[in-house]
């Protein structure tokens, strides 16, 4: 059981070709539940897909382009984000999500191999731009619960939901 063998503590570099600063990524696969071992190759593919989804999300929200979600999101996650982008367009705003660090913990690999659940403690900045004018940038820390399922060639994000545990953002 490669996934359970040790706290990986592995630092991954983001996929190549990114212009923005790469986030620091720490991965822990020592607490995976379920009878199916999480193979190294599966783990790597899921992390790659998940980090790529942050890039897609960032681009989609900044450019208000729903099509940028297609490659990495499916199901409810994609529908919700597409709705948000539609709302941004109506309101004349854009948002820029810049992830600074991820602490990814694999928590579940379903026995039939059709879903992976992970928790990510993410540090990121959110910038709001209203009719082209930058309003504010808010440093944020949130704990995301993510469910990924395999699609044709990769693992895609099906659920992406911030949990109330572990969140802290600078208040007023």
């Amino acid at each position, binding site marked *: 059981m490669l996934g359970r063998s040790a706290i990986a503590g592995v630092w991954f570099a983001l996929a190549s070709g990114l212009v923005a600063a790469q986030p620091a990524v720490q991965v822990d696969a020592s607490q995976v539940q379920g009878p199916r071992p999480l193979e190294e190759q599966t783990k790597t593919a899921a992390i790659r897909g998940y980090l790529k989804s942050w890039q897609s999300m960032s681009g989609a929200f900044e450019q208000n382009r729903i099509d940028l979600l297609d490659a990495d999101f499916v199901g409810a996650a994609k529908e919700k984000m597409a709705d948000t982008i539609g709302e941004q367009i109506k309101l004349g705003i854009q948002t820029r*999500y810049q992830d600074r660090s991820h602490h990814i913990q694999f928590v579940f690999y379903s026995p039939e191999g059709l879903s992976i659940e992970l928790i990510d403690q993410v540090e990121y900045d959110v910038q709001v731009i209203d009719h082209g004018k930058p309003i504010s940038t808010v440093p944020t820390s949130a704990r995301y619960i993510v469910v990924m399922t395999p699609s044709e060639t990769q693992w895609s994000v099906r659920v992406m939901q911030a949990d109330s545990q572990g969140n802290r953002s600078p208040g007023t």
Partner: protein
Amino acid sequence: MKAILTLLAASLLLAKLQAAWAQEETLRLPKSIEAGSAFLIEHSGGGEGTLYIVGPSQVLKRDVKAEGAVYFPARSLYDAGHYNVIFTQASGTKSGSFDVAPISAPDKLSFFANPSRLPIGVKHGITGAVYVFDAYGNLITAPTPVSFELSSPSGGIQKDRATTSIGRAWTEMDSTSQQGSGKFVAQVGELKSERIIRQVPGDPCTLKMNAQQAGQQVQLQTEPVRDCSGNAIPDGTIVTFTETYAGGQSTVDVPLKRDVAEVKLPLHSGAKFTVASGVVLGNQIGWQK
């Protein structure tokens, strides 16, 4: 007199400072709300401004005319998540954040069951994982009891219970000893999700053939092929007949038809015939002309 004037000036300055502190702009947010519920955001400091509530799942914007509370009616925010709040005025910007939590009542199950078809008698051969969502499609992260049931064609039922952990639960069950379709059900309260699992006979238990001369050929025919529980092996299952003789070998793959497989092979003196299906090897027959 000079001292009195100095004291008066100091008092005026202090009063002015206190007034300024009292007017300091603040933003009061709920720490957490339940998805779809109404909520208030209070601000002080007066003046017009714009309020943004931003998250990947929803975004809201309100123009604020005066000091006080901004009321958001029910169903304004219904997607669970972490939201940043930004309030901009001419005098500056304030920010904060709060969470929207899923409602606790389950409304939808996402049930992954595998496989849809498998041989009978496989221990832990059937697996299922279920994710529990509320009416807004939020993953319910609070522990929620789930029951699983697998009904067999004979009417027997396997049951398992679990409690969700961060929104999901799973189970493993055995395929039964009787072929046919079974219902695999995940249930949370009155909410059910059902999958059909087809259980098919396993490998043949034994394989026996008989041989009979038919002119210049030998006709080989198996006895009805069944698994170890007595279930008929499905038509189409491949049975391989092999004839080995001096100087050669012939192999023929034949699909089962109505429980038996049969074939005619050329007759060679001293030939040996064998039969196999999958990993099961049948009897051997030697033939002399």
